[in-house]
Each structure stands twice: as C-alpha cells, then as structure tokens.
C-alpha cells in the first residue's frame, strides 16, 4: 500500500534533502557518491535540494543525538506533506556503534517516523540506489527475517536403574540411544 501511495504521490521526481544529525560523514559521502554521474541517481528524478521546504524526501544520516534531535524534528516538520524519510546507515537505522553513548538518543526513528531503512556502515551507493528503487517500486524487497528453532530437544533422560557399575566406573548403559 505504501508503495502504491509512493507511486501515486511521487510519480515524477523526488527532491531529497540530506540531513546529517551527527554521523561520521561516511554516509554523506556515499549519498553524494550516488548522485555522481557513475551511479546517477538523477535518472530516477532525484535531485538534491538545500532546504527541507523544497524536499519530498529526507535522507537521515547519523543517529539521533541529544544536540541535534530538535533541529532534525524541525527540519522534518518543515517538509511539505507527503513526505518520506530514509534512514541511511546503521547509525540512522539503529544508533550504530554509538547507540549506548550518553550523547546519542538512538535511531532516528525516535525523532522522526522512518519509512525506509538502508543499513550499512556506510551502505554502498548501490545499496542506496536499491533503497530508492525499492521506494519507487522498481525492484522487489529481497530480505526476510530468519528464524531457526531447535525442533526436537534431545534432552537425555537419566534413569538410575540404567546405571551400572563396571570396573570402578559408573556407566550409563543407555547412553548411545538418545
């Protein structure tokens, strides 16, 4: 549904506003890399704008910091609706390696609602393009959560009557059966 909405609302082009709320600059460089002629995000109509008031999409890099949270929130509220937020990098997605620092509040989703997550530290420019293409409905989502359970628990049941005394050691005679 979100994808259909995206296609309808953002049918022509996405103007992106690039907000760094305290990342290490690695993700910024990759985002700018994705805008170079080699990766050429402009063929999807993506254009970098300087003000959140002109933007459809906010690209968040870096965790939500104590010092920048309010500015980030105000930038989000300055964007005209409908708006999308991309969390780029593991800082924005989950707080990154600094997630338990005193200055870091955590992922940016604590401050602004996030629509798409692009993890990586930093994500490759291809990964950013993939995320954008996913939002535009050009590619399918490839990732699914994995869960593995131990189906049968091989808990051995010891019965004292199966213990035998053999040459000074106690042996459990059914040991090989479980």
């Amino acid at each position, binding site marked *: 549904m979100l994808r259909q909405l995206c296609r309808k609302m953002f049918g022509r082009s996405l103007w992106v506003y690039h907000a760094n709320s305290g990342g290490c600059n690695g993700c910024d460089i990759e985002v700018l890399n994705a805008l170079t002629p080699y990766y050429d995000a402009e063929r999807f109509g993506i254009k970098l704008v300087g003000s959140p008031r002109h933007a459809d999409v906010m690209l968040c890099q870096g965790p939500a910091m104590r010092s920048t949270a309010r500015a980030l929130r105000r930038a989000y509220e300055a964007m005209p609706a409908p708006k999308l937020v991309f969390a780029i990098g593991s800082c924005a997605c989950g707080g990154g*390696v600094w997630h338990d620092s005193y200055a870091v509040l955590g992922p940016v989703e604590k401050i602004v609602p996030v629509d798409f997550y692009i993890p990586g530290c930093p994500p490759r420019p291809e*990964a950013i393009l993939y995320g954008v293409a*996913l939002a535009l409905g050009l*590619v399918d989502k490839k990732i699914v959560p*994995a869960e*593995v359970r131990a189906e049968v628990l091989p808990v051995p049941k010891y019965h004292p009557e199966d213990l035998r005394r053999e040459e000074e050691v106690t042996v459990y005679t059914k040991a090989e059966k479980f």
Partner: protein
Amino acid sequence: MSLLSKVKEAWVGLRAGRVTLAYPAAPAPAPERFRGRPIFDAAKCIGCAGCANNCPAREILVYDVCQEIRILKYLGRRCTYCGRCADVCPENAITMSREFETATPRIGDLQQRIELFMSTCQRCGRCFDPPSKLDELKLRGYRFDDLENERWIFRSSAYLEGQPVVDDVPLEMD
C-alpha cells in the same frame, strides 16, 4: 558560433561514451572482498556467545530461557558489517555475505533469530575455552538481554526493565 559550440559539445559528449552503471536494471555484484550482512548458520553454532560479546555495536543479543535453550538474536539494525563476529566464531558459523541489497521498509526484516539447544556442564553451566587474549574479555555464564526492547544488558543496574525504545524522548518544540 553558438550553434558550433553546441555541436562540438554534443560531439564531445557522444565520444565520451556512457559511464553510468545500469544498476538497478542490471545486477552489480559487490567485489570479492566486500563484507555484507553476516549470515548465521544455526547448524554450526554452539551458542558460545563469543560473537555477542565481541560485537562492537552490541548487535547480537543472547537470552537464556533455561539451562537447555539459548536464544541468539541478531538485530541487523546497527550492524556495521565489521566482520568481528565472523572472526571470533570458533565454529565458523557466521559468514560475511556479499549481500548489500538490504533496504527495507520494516527494520525487523533484518533480524536473524536462532534457538539453540545447549548441553549442560555440571560445573559452570556454560563452557567456552578462550583461545586468545581478546576472547578473555568475554563474559561467560548466563545472559538475559532484552529481546523485546532490543537492548544489551551487561550486568547493569542502570537498566530499567520495560523501557520503550521508540517514542521515549520528550521533545519540546518552540
């Protein structure tokens, strides 16, 4: 004159050829040594929690339900793809894949959860022999990380149980 310069420009542009990568229309696999998402192999994992204790992002949570069952949960959200977990794993149960197409609208898609059967050692409950100095930093014994709120708990008294992760920051707008 101006027409001539335009023609010249077009000719230069045509001669330069095409540099743009066709991705995402055509696949662009990551280079050989690229480290992407770590993949956990439940069949090989012995549940030593070495990966959890050495992860710089505190990304892998361990919860001991009881003596026999240990849950290992990889969150995926703050993983820096550093490969340290794959390095310390004594059973090579973690492979750093070359997967980078991990963008998702739901962060929970990145999770990997393994429920492990643990054998019991009568002496300490959990045995793991540290092979190097780095590994001696590891915490042995039982772990009770908060799987719901995705928090790593390291014998901390500052942690308050049931604290929500999202929407707990009071923000005053001016």
